[in-house]
């Protein structure tokens, strides 16, 4: 078990830079999730930690040892692949014991270790089968077993449950999390699914366009996104965005909704943030569905709209309000809400939870370090 440090790491493939200037600390025993859309560099990062790719620049330190130029086989790291990569010609037993066989451990010891792991993962009844005969979940467990048996310094998982069906995914999430707690191994987990990331990660590192966007605990990246990308990538349903312009009237800064010209009076702490950045005029107003309130039409400091779609999710409803210019705002309501499609309503916002972004750069104006 060990911590992993990446210092100013770059990875280039020809003209394409897959990872740019990445600085990342993974703490001992931590479960870190690398989250991002496909092609954002998260898998490349994982492969660099494993040694399957060597960085073009920068340094990788594993357990206080510089392993930047070390090949995968010398790093003592386990890697679970997206499609598991279980050797099809070997039985489950031989798949799991494969990593031990190269270490010259005697057969009896290997058997003891395999049995131990198999019990932990509840796969002791399928040890004689070939991977072809296994279900997705069992494949997953065997792949994990093969990783864990060596007691590696770190476990790296590349979208390991992406191919399973939805219900099973939920189960595996819990199982993986428990397994991480039991084994206490430093884990880096790559996924493009923000639900998975929020659910499993001790911390989440969000990547996009080869750059690390933000790293933090799940609630941090959720409620305090550093930029527009993180804000829209995390959360389901996603954050609502409104295009605003800052205007000054009577010495006070107001925001004007470009859609219908309605101005919104800001609380002091938001006004101050905007004042600090005088040159800004275009501002994106971000607010999560649970921080919007539907109020009777004509309430002060509100935006007008009409109910457009109602999605009943059982324990809550998601109501889409169509504003005058056509912008849709999704609102999370209690299931007992009596609203009907077509109702004219107004919406107000929980000002403490509103996130403001510089529309041009995408950076948050209200980000708290």
């Amino acid at each position, binding site marked *: 078990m060990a911590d992993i440090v990446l210092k100013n790491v770059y990875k280039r493939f020809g003209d394409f830079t897959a990872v740019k200037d990445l600085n990342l600390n993974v703490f001992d025993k931590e479960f870190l999730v690398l989250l991002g859309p496909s092609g954002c560099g998260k898998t490349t990062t994982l492969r660099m930690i*494993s*040694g*399957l790719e060597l960085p073009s620049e920068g340094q990788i330190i594993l357990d206080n040892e510089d392993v930047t130029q070390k*090949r*995968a*086989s010398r*790093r*003592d*790291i*386990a*890697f679970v*692949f*997206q*499609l598991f*990569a279980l*050797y*099809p*010609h070997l039985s489950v037993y031989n798949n799991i014991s*494969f*990593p031990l066989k*190269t*270490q010259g451990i005697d057969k009896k010891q290997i058997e003891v270790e395999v049995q131990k792991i198999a019990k932990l993962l509840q796969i002791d009844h399928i040890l004689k089968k070939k991977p072809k005969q296994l279900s997705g979940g069992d494949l997953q467990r065997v792949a994990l077993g*093969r990783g864990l048996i*060596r007691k590696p310094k770190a476990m790296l998982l590349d979208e390991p449950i992406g191919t399973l069906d939805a219900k099973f995914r939920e189960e595996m999430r819990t199982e993986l999390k428990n397994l991480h707690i039991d084994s206490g191994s430093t884990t880096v987990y790559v996924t493009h699914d923000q639900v998975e990331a929020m659910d499993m990660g001790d911390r989440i590192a969000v990547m996009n366009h080869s750059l690390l966007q933000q790293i933090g605990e799940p609630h941090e990246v959720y409620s305090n996104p550093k930029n527009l990308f993180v804000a829209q990538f995390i959360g389901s349903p996603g954050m609502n965005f409104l295009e605003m312009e800052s205007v000054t009237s009577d010495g006070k800064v107001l925001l004007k909704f470009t859609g219908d010209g309605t101005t919104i009076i800001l609380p002091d702490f938001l006004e101050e943030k905007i004042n600090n950045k005088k040159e800004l005029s275009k501002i994106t107003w971000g607010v999560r569905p649970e921080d919007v309130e539907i109020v009777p039409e004509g309430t002060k400091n509100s935006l007008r709209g009409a109910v457009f779609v109602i999605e009943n999710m059982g324990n809550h409803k998601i109501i889409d309000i169509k504003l005058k210019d056509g912008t849709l705002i999704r609102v999370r309501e209690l299931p007992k809400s009596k609203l009907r499609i077509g109702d004219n309503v107004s919406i107000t916002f929980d000002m403490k939870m509103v996130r403001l972004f510089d529309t041009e750069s995408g950076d948050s104006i209200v980000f708290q370090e």
Partner: protein
Amino acid sequence: MAEIRQYKGIKHYLVIIVLISITVIMMIPLFYIVNTSFRPWAEIKSYPPKLVYEPSIGSYIRVFTARTVYPSGTTPSDEELAAMTWYEQIVYKDTNEEVVRRGDFPKRYANSLLISITTTLLTVILGTIAAYGFSRFKVRGEGNLLFFILSTRMLPPVIVVIPVFLMYRTVGLNDSYIGLILLYTAFNVSFAVWVLKGFIDEIPREYEEAAMVDGYTRWETFRKVVLPQSVTGIAATAVFVFIFSWNEYAFAFLLTRNTAQTVPAWLPYQMGVLGYDWGAAAAGSVLFLIPAMILTILLRKHLVRGISFGAIRK
């Protein structure tokens, strides 16, 4: 429903009839050769051919022996007759000949086996390693190299027979095992690289990466992960290469005389004192067919998968 089933039934039988007809047509030459090899000496050239006859292994004995005819008017004495082995008696009864020594067939057969097996092993080993290299590493000028390798197959080998003959004569490779093995290997490696590259391309890299992360070197990974998974491709390639070198006629005919002569080059020369011995030629052919048949049957599972390779995408 009933009509559909009936229609299906007819179609089913039609397919079977067509398949049987094709099989029969394809089997006729084989049947003819086997049949000829078991005909007694007197029957081989009889016209019209008799359909029913007593099978004889005389032809098989003749292909294994060298014989001379008793001078006309002389016959072996009763003592000599009694001292003859069973096969000498058969030869005497059939053709009035005396067996003088063992024939060349076993030696030619051994030559064929030695050359074909060595060629197959060499080709498969070289081909697998080269294909792995092309499949997994960035090789400078990969496209050109692969084309170059393939280009050796673009002309029929017969075209280079004469130049090869002259070159071999200069360097002293004429009528040598190494000469034929080198030549056959060179011709087949290109084929092997292309076929095996396809197979290895299909094996996901993740398997190797998993093994490398688990502490195996590149070479160990190749042996323990890639090789077992390319068995099908290797088997299919091996069968094709073996059959090529086993059957090869033109080079064997021109480049070998004695030491390294293979069966295809030797078999046509069954001219005896009594005219061309069709029986012995047929018997030799039947025996010659056996190894290729055994190999094909043993590896048929891999072969079918190997031939239909690429037809089905997973």
